[in-house]
């Protein structure tokens, strides 16, 4: 049976893993390669690496540390950060990523999703969506890696995820910005709304601190994977413990 994925997300800035609160005030949490090895040993199902300032700084993700990670990691790696073209994506995949995730560049030029899907197959293409509730609706944000460059898009999240799927996304990672780093749990309402609109895998992101948050994401919002960063990096929540608790609740989990 296909298991639900527990995903560790490493936000990288200047070669270090960082974590903020609602995408602001980042603190340094360590070396990406060391953390990646630790997560493999802990039984994480997948790792996501975001070069969080790449898009806002108008550059591509740093290939050097992707190669370094790919050499030591034996679980799937998804890489995000400033991938604007098929050639950018090819370089990242050749450096050892299994999937690429596009966010701001896809908002700027949605055809990018179709081009990547055509070239590498939909299974390679994740679309990350940074979304925030404004005036009773959910809206996409871009360039969220640098506070001063962050801006709201004139796109509703629920429309954008459908368009992304239509264009060839193989997976959506929904970063619910209001719950990010707060530790109050995933935005189940927003995730459920997205879940009902797409039939590609959906990954929850933003707000997890305890096992019950993961349980709710899997059982209430019916997501396929749930991602966390701070709670894992600070070792407030250990993946083996989390997975055992989820398994005890009857959720299909690899452990």
């Amino acid at each position: 049976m296909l298991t639900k994925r527990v995903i560790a997300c490493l936000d990288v800035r200047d070669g270090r893993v960082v974590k903020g609160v609602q995408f602001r005030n980042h603190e340094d949490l360590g070396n990406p390669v060391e953390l990646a090895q630790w997560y493999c040993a802990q039984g994480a199902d997948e790792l996501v690496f975001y070069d969080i300032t790449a898009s806002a700084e108008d550059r591509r993700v740093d290939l050097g540390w992707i190669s370094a990670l790919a050499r030591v990691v034996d679980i799937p790696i998804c890489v995000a950060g400033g991938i604007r073209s098929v050639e950018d994506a090819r370089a990242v995949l050749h450096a050892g990523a299994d999937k690429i995730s596009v966010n701001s560049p896809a908002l700027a030029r949605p055809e990018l999703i179709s081009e990547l899907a055509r070239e590498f197959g939909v299974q390679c293409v994740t679309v990350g969506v940074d979304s925030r509730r404004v005036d009773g609706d959910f809206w996409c944000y871009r360039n969220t890696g640098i506070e001063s460059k962050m801006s709201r898009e004139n796109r509703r999240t629920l429309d954008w995820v459908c368009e992304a799927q239509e264009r060839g996304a193989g997976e959506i990672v929904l970063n619910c910005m209001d719950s990010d780093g707060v530790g109050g749990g995933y935005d189940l309402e927003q995730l459920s709304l997205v879940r009902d609109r797409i039939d590609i895998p959906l990954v929850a992101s933003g707000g997890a601190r305890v096992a019950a948050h993961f349980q709710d994401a899997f059982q209430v919002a019916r997501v396929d994977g749930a991602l966390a960063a701070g709670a894992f990096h600070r070792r407030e929540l250990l993946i083996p413990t989390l997975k055992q608790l989820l398994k005890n609740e009857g959720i299909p989990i690899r452990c």
Partner: protein
Amino acid sequence: MITIVDSGGSNLGSVQNAFLRLGIPSEITSDADRIYRASKVVLPGVGAAGRAMSVLHARELIQCIQGLKQPVLGICLGMQLMFEYSEEDLVQTLAIVPGQVRQLPRGSGLPVPHLGWNSVEWVESVSRSRLVDGIESGAYFYFVHSFAAELTPFTVGISEYGHPFSALIEKDNFFGAQFHPERSGATGARLLKNFGALER
């Protein structure tokens, strides 16, 4: 030395890294002569069947691969290409193993692609594949695909996503895994190590 066929896919580096972690040297090539003389061959592949077949045609590798006598391991798309036909791009494939590759049904309530860790049961009616020595039936492997091969007499590992499909196949010297052993943690590493230990 393991020879990894460059069929234009993007997971070549992942496969090479996985062998490197096991201390097994490998090379990546699209040279038919090197592939023909290799002690073992891996046919990886990420992408679409049509494009991969045109790359193999353009590099004149079709007959070379079909005629190999040493152990050959197809991974993901590489495994699918070993069958006769793929619904993806409606393309004739290598026809090393009888059977067809079909699209996973959409709209059945299960997200497509089939993406994540799924269990694989060894088929007990056939002699257990040497590839799975030391790996228990029901072990988890990482999958990411939208097309899958039907069950055939050469299916040695079955996984299920809505309905059962071939997760691992073996016919003579040809092996194929729908999952990604290079990304399946210690279990996947064991499978690759078993492949590396096969005798010609």
